[in-house]
């Protein structure tokens, strides 16, 4: 059962990620990205990260992607007429293919050495909440300041005339 979910969600994730990059229309890219994020939530559940999976759906696929869709529909863009020059496209593919090959090599190398089946990890709301307010308290507070700065920055950018 786990391997079926692993392969199904994983292949779906890769296909949807490819669609994000390939699709001509930004709207289709955004919808494919939502599907990819949902596929990733399935992988999170397989890895005992139930709370993170819920947040992935609620915050990422919900809030952030709504922001994207809102902007895309507000701008009402035409699909891309042309891509970048051929050498940039080729260079990007070579770079990406090289990255895949290198990382696959390193991962397979690591897999041969260790066959750890993983350990139970408590991904419940309670445990993560305690962790956030003890071990990661400073980072937690710093993130709240960062979000405040981002909100102020977005509002300033949104002003018609900077005052």
């Amino acid at each position, binding site marked *: 059962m786990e391997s079926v979910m692993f392969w199904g969600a994983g292949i779906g994730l890769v296909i949807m990620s490819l669609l994000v990059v390939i699709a001509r229309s930004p709207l289709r890219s955004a919808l494919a990205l939502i599907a990819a994020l949902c596929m990733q939530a399935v992988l999170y559940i397989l890895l005992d990260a139930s709370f993170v999976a819920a947040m992935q759906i609620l915050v990422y696929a919900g809030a952030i992607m709504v922001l*994207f869709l809102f902007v895309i529909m507000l701008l009402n863009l035409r699909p891309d007429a042309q891509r970048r020059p051929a050498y940039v496209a080729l260079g990007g593919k070579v770079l990406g293919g090289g990255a895949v090959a290198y990382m696959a090599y390193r991962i397979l190398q690591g897999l041969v050495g260790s066959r750890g089946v993983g350990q139970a990890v408590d991904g419940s709301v309670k445990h993560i909440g305690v962790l956030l307010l003890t071990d990661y308290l400073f980072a937690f507070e710093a993130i709240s300041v960062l979000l405040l700065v981002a909100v102020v920055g977005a509002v300033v950018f949104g002003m018609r005339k900077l005052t």
Partner: protein
Amino acid sequence: MMDMAIVPMHYLIWSALVFAIGAVGAIVRRNALVLIMSIELMLNAANLAFIAFAKQYGHAGGHAIVFFVMAIAAAEAAVGLAIVLGVFRTRQTVDVDELDALRDET
């Protein structure tokens, strides 16, 4: 292939693939919105690796880090989209190749 035991490290393969796809998208695409979405893909690939390692070592710290990454992704999306909107308002385009106001002339 389908009946082999799935260990947490196998999830790194998906993570690597998605990261590479996002990197290629960030290089190849010209639309600023798709560019930001490619960056989101790369952030998500990193998140998947964090969760896989959390399972591998039985420590939920990776889950906490994923929350911080999500918060940073939200901040990045908010500011990035505000910039895209501002650029579109003055130039009527979101094509990153046409934004060359800061480019050196030589």
